[in-house]
């Protein structure tokens, strides 16, 4: 039997400005009722990241994936327009696309042969009778389109709510952060080959919190820093640890970012000795291009600052030693699926691309020197919540007593939770 949700005076959270204390009910991570409400109030109303335009560059390219609890196909139609539709035949429901990506002029349902083009329009079925004239006319049996599909700087988002507002309005100041990513190339960014599709036995919000958590690095990733120290040439020679500092900003609508100095190399565009002389020429060239296109100040922000960007509810763009687009889906209260890819400028020099990928997997990958420890942390949090009858609250207060939050404070998580609470309490 479900216990009633104890929302408290502030809903699922306690946001006590007077005492600088911010608490989240652990039930938010474990309750079936909460997950059902999230599916309705968050995943059915918010803009959700779907794909990057570079994954479907040509007409009739498609990807199919799980988005917000649905099975969705994102495709470019024969005219090159990007659209999204539900991956289910309008006849009896079978998925019409069973490949994760590809190029095809048509999706043929394997069950009875109903056939659709890449805009989702029904274009045929094999029977020569049994349906009245005009039965398939006027798009009546077309694949059902997702209510909204829109693109911001090649990031494709969908929204299942017909009444939703626009994407740019939704992104609020997070759009500026996407600009800082998209502006890294003069000709466009691309998702590179190789996906990291993995999972965690943890609630999806634990990964959101963990993806921009400057506070945990020293403890949880001690062995990663040991490794960096044992490895020559991975740090900027002139790096001063006090430069890391950094700031945390709320970006509106539950989005947030931590931005801080990068001790390690950044393919765009901060060279470290590990990348060799040819790498230096390439990175310097990228920097010169940034300055030319964006001016010195913005170029240096793009090139020298790390950004862990949280876009509500389930998109993380970590612009650090490499660039990851990471999105995750709740499967159950205690199990999530993650998909992550590596994003890079199309014009990147091969030597730099090599180190981008080499460094990505070492920190950000599920078999690297850090992410497995994150997985462990999230899983033992979820296990710890079994003590919930007696231990009810999580603490996310760090930095609440400061006017400006630093990169290892927790404002970014509070921004998420305040928005989450607002939507869930509506």
């Amino acid at each position: 039997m479900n216990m009633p949700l104890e929302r408290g005076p502030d809903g699922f959270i306690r946001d006590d400005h007077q005492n600088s204390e911010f608490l989240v009910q652990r039930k938010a991570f474990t309750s079936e009722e909460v997950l059902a409400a999230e599916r309705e109030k968050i995943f059915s109303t918010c803009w959700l990241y779907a794909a990057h335009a570079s994954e479907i560059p040509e007409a009739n390219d498609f990807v199919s994936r799980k988005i917000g609890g649905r099975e969705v196909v994102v495709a470019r139609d024969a005219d090159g327009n990007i659209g999204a539709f539900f991956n289910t035949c309008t006849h009896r429901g079978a998925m019409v696309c069973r490949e994760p990506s590809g190029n095809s002029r048509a999706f043929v349902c394997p069950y009875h042969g109903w056939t659709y083009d890449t805009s989702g329009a029904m274009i045929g079925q094999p029977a020569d009778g049994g349906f009245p004239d005009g039965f398939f006319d006027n798009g009546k049996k077309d694949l059902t389109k997702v209510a909204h599909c829109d693109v911001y700087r090649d990031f494709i988002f969908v929204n299942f709510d017909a009444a939703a507002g626009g994407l740019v309005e939704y992104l609020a100041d997070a759009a500026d952060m996407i600009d800082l990513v998209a502006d890294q190339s003069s000709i466009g960014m691309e998702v590179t080959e190789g996906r990291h599709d993995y999972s965690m036995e943890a609630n999806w919000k634990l990964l959101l919190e963990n993806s921009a958590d400057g506070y945990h690095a020293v403890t949880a990733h001690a062995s990663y820093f040991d490794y960096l120290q044992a490895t020559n040439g991975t740090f900027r020679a002139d790096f001063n640890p006090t430069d890391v500092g950094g700031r945390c900003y709320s970006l509106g609508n539950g989005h947030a970012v931590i931005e801080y100095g990068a001790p390690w190399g950044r393919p765009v565009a901060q060279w470290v000795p590990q990348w060799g002389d040819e790498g230096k020429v390439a990175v310097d060239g990228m920097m010169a291009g940034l300055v030319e296109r964006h001016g010195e100040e913005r170029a240096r922000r793009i090139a020298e600052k790390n950004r862990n960007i949280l876009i509500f509810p389930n998109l993380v763009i970590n612009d650090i030693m490499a660039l990851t687009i990471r999105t995750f889906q709740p499967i159950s209260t205690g199990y999530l699926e993650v998909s992550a890819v590596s994003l890079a400028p199309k014009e990147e020099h091969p030597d730099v691309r090599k180190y981008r990928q080499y460094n990505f997997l070492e920190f950000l990958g599920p078999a690297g020197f850090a992410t497995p420890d994150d997985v462990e942390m999230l899983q033992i949090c979820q296990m710890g919540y079994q003590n919930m009858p007696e231990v009810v609250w999580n603490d996310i207060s760090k930095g609440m007593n400061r006017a400006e939050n630093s990169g290892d404070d927790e404002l970014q998580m509070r921004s998420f939770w305040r928005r989450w609470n607002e939507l869930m309490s509506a």
Partner: protein
Amino acid sequence: MAAYSRGQVEEFLYYEADLLDSWRMKEWYPLYTEDSEYLVPPIENPDADKETALFIINDDFHRLTQRALRLTKKTAHVEWPRSKVRHLISNVRIVDQQPTEIRVEYNQVVYRAKRGMDEFVCHVKQTLVPDGDSFKIKSKRIILDLHALRPQGQISIIL
């Protein structure tokens, strides 16, 4: 040209597996040559190029050494307390034999027990070089016969 038997190769593969199963990490990495690689390519394209694609693991000798040493520390939280690991190897074939290099392929299942049980079903391609009475490993490429790293979630051990 020295012809190595499958038995000699198997003996070596079992030895490597035993070092990993008994967590003798500091004896494991010296089996590799200084120009070696230890790779897990992307699941969707096992033939991908490590210089352009995002791999799951792409270690050179330095990084595989560090990977092994990390696993000896309590701060490798995911493996503390340590999991129980067991490698099962079968279908060993020598696919090419030259005086300086032997290419070997085999199937492998690795079990990792910690709370639950993770299974990693893989096809492995190794390039060995003769080293006295035994071999050293120049390349180990582990092709995961998985749809995704689910529900394993990660590779925290050495496959």
